[in-house]
């Protein structure tokens, strides 16, 4: 109820009623509304009501506060959600992102403890992610396997690969000398803001430019709508499919580095666990259709931040651990319901019905 009112106010503030409808129909609006409500909830229930407070932390050389840690956590979601958006808009899905995160994180930590140069370790673990993405891409595009099956197999295999890399241990690289650059990538600050968030944002913008300033985005969408038709118009669907899975693998590797470098330790069974679901949720919240053919990178990015904010809310509100999945689901479903076109047309629909009834009455009389 309150959400609808807020949306309305924002709409009428701009101009006519038509604009308000358009704004209500926009997926970004509801993500922003959800963010605002979650932040409001946190501020109210925070014992000192200082949820929005920011202060300078001499220790880290950057701003600190609840919102900053939220942004730090959102970096990994931004990465996997971006890759997932491209894959989903080709009418595919990539269930392996969480496992690829674990593999790249495991590789980075293991290489660091074995004494490799930190930059080489970063490069190799990114390449491993890219390679796993390419395997997905090859199976889907060249062999024509179902994306769901292919990436499900990679999801299961990935955990195994991560365990093989670290021989089942949770490798700890926190005491490795010379690993500071990687630690800085996940925990450092530039201009007072978290490095990993800025880096993630930069990557999202680059992917966005690549898609929207060239014909790439349109080609991806056309493959999602009808691969055969797009092939006949001169687009190479196989190449596009291969590319989106490869990009998704690479971005998942970046996310894996963020997740493990944050504590400089990989947890082979927990790193990236369930994150494929979070990525899909972020994409859906952002308004990309799971049927493919249409995507919004800005929407997914906002969706990723909403996901991070929900996680933050769970901690701040102190929601019982048994109830957290339910709370998570509740927030997501409310956002999805508010975005549904049927809900927006509800008013018009009721008017139409009433008119029809009146008409029927008039005829009967």
């Amino acid at each position, binding site marked *: 109820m309150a959400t609808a009112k807020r949306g309305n106010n924002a709409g009428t503030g701009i101009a006519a009623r038509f604009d308000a409808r358009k704004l209500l129909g926009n997926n970004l609006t509801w993500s922003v509304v959800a963010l605002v409500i979650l932040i409001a909830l946190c501020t109210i229930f*925070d*014992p*000192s009501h*200082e*949820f929005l407070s920011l202060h300078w*932390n*001499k*220790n*880290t050389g950057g701003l*600190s*506060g*609840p919102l900053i*840690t939220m942004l730090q*956590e959102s970096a990994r979601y931004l990465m996997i959600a971006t890759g997932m958006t491209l894959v989903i808009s080709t009418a595919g899905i990539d269930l392996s992102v969480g496992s690829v995160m674990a593999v790249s994180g495991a590789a980075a930590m293991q290489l660091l403890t074995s004494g490799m140069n930190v930059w080489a370790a970063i490069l190799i673990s990114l390449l491993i992610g890219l390679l796993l993405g390419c395997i997905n891409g090859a199976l889907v595009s060249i*062999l*024509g*396997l*179902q994306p769901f*099956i*292919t990436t499900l197999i990679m999801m299961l295999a990935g*955990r195994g690969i991560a*365990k093989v890399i670290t021989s*089942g*241990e*949770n490798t*700890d690289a*926190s*005491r490795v000398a010379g690993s500071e650059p990687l630690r800085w990538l996940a*925990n450092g600050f530039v201009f007072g803001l978290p490095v990993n968030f800025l880096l993630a944002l930069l990557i999202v913008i680059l992917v966005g430019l690549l898609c929207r300033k060239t014909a790439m985005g349109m080609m991806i969408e056309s493959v999602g709508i009808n691969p055969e038709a797009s092939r006949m118009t001169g687009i190479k669907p196989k190449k596009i499919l291969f590319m989106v899975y490869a990009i998704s693998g690479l971005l998942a590797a970046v996310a894996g580095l963020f*997740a*493990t470098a*944050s*504590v400089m*330790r990989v*947890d*082979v*069974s*927990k*790193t990236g666990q369930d994150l494929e679901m979070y990525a899909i949720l972020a994409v859906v919240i952002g308004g990309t259709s799971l049927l493919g053919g249409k995507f919004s990178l800005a929407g997914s990015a906002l969706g990723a931040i909403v996901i991070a904010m929900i*996680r*933050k809310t769970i*901690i*701040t509100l*102190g929601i019982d*651990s*048994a109830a*957290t999945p339910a709370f998570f689901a509740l927030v997501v479903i409310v956002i999805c319901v508010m975005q549904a076109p049927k809900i927006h047309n509800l008013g018009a629909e009721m008017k139409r019905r009433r008119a029809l009834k009146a008409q029927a009455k008039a005829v009967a009389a």
Partner: protein
Amino acid sequence: MTKEVIKQTEERSSERKETQLEEECSMKNWKKAIALIASMSALVSMAACGSANGASGGNGGKKVVGFVAVGAEGGFRTANENDIQTAFKDAGFDLRYSPTTQSDQQKQIQAFNKFVNDEVDAIILSSTEDSGWDDSLKKAAEAEIPVFTVDRDVDVQDAAAKKAIVSHIGPSNEWCGQQAAEFLNKQFPDGGNGLILEGIAGLSVVKDRQTGFDEKIASNQKVLESQSANWSTDEAKTVTAGLLDKYKSQGVNWIWAQNDEMALGAAQAVDAAGLKGKVTIIGNDGTKAALQAVADGELAFDIEYNPIFGKETAQAVQDYLDGKDVEPNIEIESKTFTKEEAQAALDSGERQY
């Protein structure tokens, strides 16, 4: 046994037919996917067949012990299961190791039932979950196969099933919780504010450690909040950072993490918040990484959960099979580590994990 093999071969041949059929009419992608799965499952059943044949081989008159294990999970588990395997080998048993994957209890139950069918001399059970074992244990009781539970205890309702369990061998989780509480009482005699990082909700380890802690913690110690960080370092860092922000005005004096992984994550959050040295952090399990952190002053105290009890387990099994009495609950002693003790333990180089 033979019936099983026949069934499997039948399944295999039918699957092969299916695969051929699928290939003949492979017009669409999804059919290829199904074919792939069918051929993969055929492979898996072949592999299963192979191992079944292997297990029935001769054992040279040795007593056969089935070990229903957890498999790769972390440092503790690896040290624990390796130790049990070596100890039984040294004691002259034929130990059949059957680990599960991803804490899948279903696989453990299958392995357990297979050991009962194979009529092994004893079964060692390291269960992933404490409930759901009644039926399997009843079968073991009927077949008169003694069962020894190690590490995690099993919660059994059925009286007939209870008879199968001879003894539980492992360190006490309640003791771990008590040690953490006593250390805090000593450190903060005038009371203090604290946070608790719990493991995965619903596990018996979590319940037992919490029970022990609650028994001993002084009433002037105030638990500001208790949240789950799912045993994960990464999640513990996020949760701790959130809670430190939330209780900034009250001030947090101590954090009790129910395992080492979470304690290490909490330490990083405390460090990032610029509170290093001002918050007393306690971990649990005695892993090398945590002991190093205790020695370096990042953690204040660590409680071991001793994984090395293969010898005791082998002895208990031997005693029972020889007709001697065996204690129903064999508690394995663990140590606690302060800064100096941790350094000494690391210097000795004896820590396996």
